[in-house]
């Protein structure tokens, strides 16, 4: 099998596995857990845009997630149809994201983290204390899940498939974003913001648009959460929820496509599966995180890739794979003898930088002897 066909086969196998989850899981509770993994994966992918690609760690994203859920829930309670409520939720989240961005992008690093934390807590306070609107700690219920195109999502399998479609769309959007010029620009602002400005980039605007992109997928995840639980309460917007999704991103691997998905799977499985068997499941989760950070500080997915590469070389004596090197390129070649610098004789200007072929500069009259 060709090396290039291996990832393709893995993708096909993963897709087949995802599409048959309700068949081989059987129990509707576990199908629901699978739905939650996917919806939290969308949430983690949204945060990864900021925490991973932009290097802006947010502790207020649960607030955006909750804005979406609350807006849709309150609109549904007010009698709006599902489509209108969903559009309203996305719009409200985008507006809130824009406000968050304008306030938080005044800083980077710990300052950004603290501002987003404060904003998230503000939303939690509103959800918790504005009882007339949000029903306080009792939360808001919705009567039923939507039925897009006449397909009822009431059952666990149908809701799972709907969530899977949204998850795959989110994954495809993130993959395109990752490879796009805008994605490269965003990573550039993370690595060398000053240099990016000097190269002509509007660093603030790039970060602002990335915040909106992240907010959009937060709103989608918030909607999925509301439809899944048919209930939303202030706990969704609490600091713990923001920290949890951040842990998903960090443990899986920041700035990777599959890292947040793996992180979401770990956290959701611990919360909804392991907790049924282990009373102190939080302790187990903590041990897993410590192990990941200790042995794979770059995260579970990139760490596994690194260990797999090491094992290939160590046990199968296979050469290191260098994905970035083009076919025909000579990665080991040194730069010295190639290009116009080859040889010791100076090159005329037109042969080097493509100038006009003549040196119009006048010799300086005051040149030292």
């Amino acid at each position, binding site marked *: 099998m060709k090396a290039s066909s291996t990832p393709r086969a893995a993708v096909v196998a993963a897709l087949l596995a995802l599409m048959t989850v309700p068949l081989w899981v059987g129990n509707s509770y576990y199908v629901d857990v699978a739905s939650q993994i996917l919806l939290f994966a969308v949430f983690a992918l949204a945060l990864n845009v900021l925490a991973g690609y932009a290097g802006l760690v947010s502790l207020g994203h649960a607030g955006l997630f909750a804005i979406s859920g609350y807006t849709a829930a309150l609109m549904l309670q007010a009698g709006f149809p599902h489509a209108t409520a969903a559009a309203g939720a996305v719009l409200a989240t985008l507006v809130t994201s824009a406000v968050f961005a304008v306030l938080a992008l005044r800083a980077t690093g710990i300052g950004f983290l603290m501002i987003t934390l404060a904003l998230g807590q503000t939303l939690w306070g509103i959800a918790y204390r504005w009882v007339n609107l949000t029903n306080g700690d009792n939360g808001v219920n919705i009567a039923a899940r939507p039925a897009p195109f006449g397909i009822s999502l009431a059952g666990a399998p149908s809701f799972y498939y709907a969530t899977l479609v949204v998850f795959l769309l989110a994954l495809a959007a993130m993959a395109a974003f990752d490879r*796009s010029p805008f*994605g490269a620009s965003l*990573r550039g602002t993370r690595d060398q913001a*000053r240099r990016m400005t*000097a190269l002509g980039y509007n660093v603030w605007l790039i970060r602002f648009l990335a915040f909106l992109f992240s907010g959009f997928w937060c709103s989608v995840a918030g909607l999925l959460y509301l439809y899944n639980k048919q209930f939303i309460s202030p706990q969704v917007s609490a600091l713990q929820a923001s920290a949890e999704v951040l842990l998903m991103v960090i443990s899986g691997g920041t700035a990777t496509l599959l890292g947040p998905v793996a992180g979401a799977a770990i956290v959701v499985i611990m919360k909804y599966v392991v907790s049924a068997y282990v009373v102190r499941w939080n302790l187990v989760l903590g041990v897993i995180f410590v192990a990941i950070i200790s042995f794979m500080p770059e995260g579970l997915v990139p760490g596994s890739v690194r260990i797999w590469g090491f094992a290939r070389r160590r046990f199968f004596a296979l050469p290191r794979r260098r994905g970035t090197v083009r076919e025909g390129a000579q990665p080991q070649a040194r730069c*010295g003898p190639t290009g116009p610098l080859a040889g010791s004789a100076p090159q005329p*200007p037109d042969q080097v930088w493509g100038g006009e072929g003549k040196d119009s500069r006048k010799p300086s009259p005051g040149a030292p002897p």
Partner: protein
Amino acid sequence: MTALTVTGLTKSFGGLRVTNGVDLAVEPGERRLIIGPNGAGKTTLFNLITGELASDAGKIVLFGQDITRAPCRRRAHLGLARTYQIITLFPRDTILRNVVLALLGLSGLRWNPVVDLARQRHLTVRAREALALVGLDRVADRPLTETSYGERRRVEIAMAMVQNPKVLLLDEPFAGLSIDERRDVRQLLAAIPPDVTIVMIEHNMDVALDFADRITLLHFGEVIVEGTRAEVVADPRTREVYLGE
């Protein structure tokens, strides 16, 4: 029309005035050398010209256009490019991607969140051409972390030149280079088209004096000597302040 005119440029950090009424007029195509002892305000002057620092007073004009209040990114679009004394590249990317980012900075494509950057052949071809000119085309796909200091210096120059600048600011391009690398970079700089105006900060007088048409000597943020190479070298203030005689 001058390429770059700086008039009465002033900048203070707290009580310390690091740039004190600097006047500078650089003609199109000129090679201007800025010299001065450590702490003279040379790099600060560059940061003011590129807009990375805001000036307290004074005026900066690029080819007749007042850019004093223009943001740094706008100045890049107007034809101002620079390199850094402390190499400032994108360490997680390949050499090629670094140069592509420089190209992308002036392209409307940078806002596109959909197309695949690797498939934008016009960018990669131009980036490879620029890398060929600095002798790095064969290692273009190498991660930046696996390059030498001299190679990174060449990447910096390729990134600046690929933006087709009208005025190029070079901040100590020979700093930290070996004798061979210095010779290579010197050759590269000599080959930059004559229509590109170059202002260079450099301590290495062996290479810098040979390169410059005119020299400006800064001391404590002020221009104290300006003239041709012979005039500046012969000036007793140069010897006193810079050459230590």
